[in-house]
């Protein structure tokens, strides 16, 4: 049936026919870069509006509904506003680091896009250490945050950045261990292998109890990783006046803002890939007719549907739970999540060895 592989193969063969292989490769780089930037722009547009509307309906009020039908063009208006705002650099700020920090955070968000499989055969780089790459590169974003806090020449920004850095580093442990427990089942770090192993059912169903515990820990840990509520002490409006990005305005603030939403999308995409099968439709082993029907729904629709469901879950967390203090946050990680995820890894290893999963 219709698949993105046809498009990519035809573009590839067309380029190789007309140009020399090196130039064709460079052209493909440019096309992929353009697609990634377009995806970012679209994601920013959709996610900011989705956040505002979802948060409004959960607070029994309407969201933006004046700009365009049902408020669709609100994000366009917001982007225009941020683009024409004055980007003020504070007087004693370290100019090089101050200007570099938003770009570090943004580039890290773009780099993590590489191994994610958006649809069948539609991956930028299917490397053999896909999951490890994602986990490692996402740690680099802490540098951007610390740079922003330090270079702002503002002790409250620095405090916010230090808190945010401590929080992200701690929660990466739990997130990594819960990812690891699924890797124990698949036996491979490669994203395409992980998705292929879910051909007869998603890991969250096949790996019953340990996989469900793993998923819960993963969702909590990535909510904390991306500085989303209830773990947003570092950047909430009423705490430390926006923390590490207090002194940023105009386009640089827009980059931080966009990078936050894209990070949410990326961690949800990883969660959807590991626990819910990525682009793999819902298959139940043994029900051939059902599986056949599920295959008719395009794989990109499956992927984006699952990712947006997880994004909705993270937004639901934001508007339900009160904010955690920094000591309660670190307490939760080091005393509860980490021991449970280590124990869960042992349990999952036992399940994998004894073959007690489906």
């Amino acid at each position, binding site marked *: 049936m219709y698949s993105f592989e046809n498009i990519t193969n035809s573009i590839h063969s067309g380029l190789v026919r007309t140009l020399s292989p090196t130039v064709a490769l460079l052209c493909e780089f440019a096309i992929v870069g353009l697609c990634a930037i377009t995806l970012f722009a679209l994601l920013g547009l959709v996610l900011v509006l989705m956040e505002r509307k*979802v948060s409004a*309906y*959960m607070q*029994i*009020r309407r969201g933006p509904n004046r700009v365009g039908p049902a408020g669709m063009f609100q994000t366009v208006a917001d982007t225009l506003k941020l683009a024409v705002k004055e980007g003020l650099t504070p007087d004693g700020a370290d100019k090089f680091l101050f200007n570099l920090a938003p770009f570090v955070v943004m580039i890290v968000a773009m780099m993590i896009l590489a191994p994610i499989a958006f649809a069948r055969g539609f991956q930028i780089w299917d490397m053999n250490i896909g999951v490890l790459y994602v986990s490692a590169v996402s740690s680099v974003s802490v540098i951007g945050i610390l740079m922003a806090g330090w270079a702002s020449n503002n002790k409250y920004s620095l405090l916010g950045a230090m808190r945010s850095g401590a929080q992200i580093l701690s929660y990466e442990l739990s997130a990594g261990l819960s990812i690891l427990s699924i890797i124990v089942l698949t036996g491979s770090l490669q994203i395409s292998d992980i998705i292929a192993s879910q051909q007869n059912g998603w890991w969250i169903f096949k790996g019953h109890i340990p996989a469900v515990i793993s998923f819960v820990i993963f969702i909590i840990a990535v909510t904390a990783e991306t500085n989303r509520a209830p773990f947003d002490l570092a950047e909430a409006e009423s705490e430390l006046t926006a923390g590490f990005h207090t002194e940023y305005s105009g386009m640089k603030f827009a980059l931080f803002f966009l990078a936050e939403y894209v990070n949410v999308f990326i961690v949800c995409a990883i969660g959807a890939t590991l626990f819910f099968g990525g682009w793999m439709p819902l298959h139940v082993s043994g029900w051939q007719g059902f599986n056949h029907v599920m295959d008719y729904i395009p794989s990109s629709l499956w992927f984006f549907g699952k990712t947006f469901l997880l994004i909705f879950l993270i937004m*639901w*967390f934001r*508007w*339900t*739970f009160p904010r955690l203090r920094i000591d309660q946050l670190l307490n939760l990680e080091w005393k509860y999540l980490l021991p449970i995820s280590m124990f869960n890894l042992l349990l999952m290893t036992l399940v994998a060895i004894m073959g007690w999963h489906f």
Partner: protein
Amino acid sequence: MFLKKYLSDIFKAIRSLLTGMKLTGYYFTHRKEIITQQYPDNREEMKLPDRFRGEVVMIHDENNEHACTGCTACELACPNGTIKIITKFEVTKDGKKKKALDDFIYHLELCTMCNLCIEACPTDAIKMAQNFEHSVYDRSKLTKKLNNPGSKIREGVE
């Protein structure tokens, strides 16, 4: 013992989190609960709460009579001098001279809608109306006389 408390803490925490999520999920799925009123579009069928404090008006019945005796309790209760009572002496049927209300001057531009004058009035002559669109282009329109022309006090109020 410690382990039992640890595990029971975790289960209680998860249950309370899920209870919270159930409530916000309920609000998300039930659009009927939305309390936002889309103001400029719903001016015809707008319904304000009963105790809404708009501006002070004097109650007149169908015979154009009011219940204000001119006792100036409201003028004394008002925190910033919004009300000014002007009284006159009129001769009653018995031939005695009695104080009666001449003009009830109300400065809408100064009023804070604090409701103290309504609470102070011993005869329930004034009340809070339900309109809030007070903008005018001419400042003198904000100084109002609350008793209708040609109205007098109802029998039996004093």
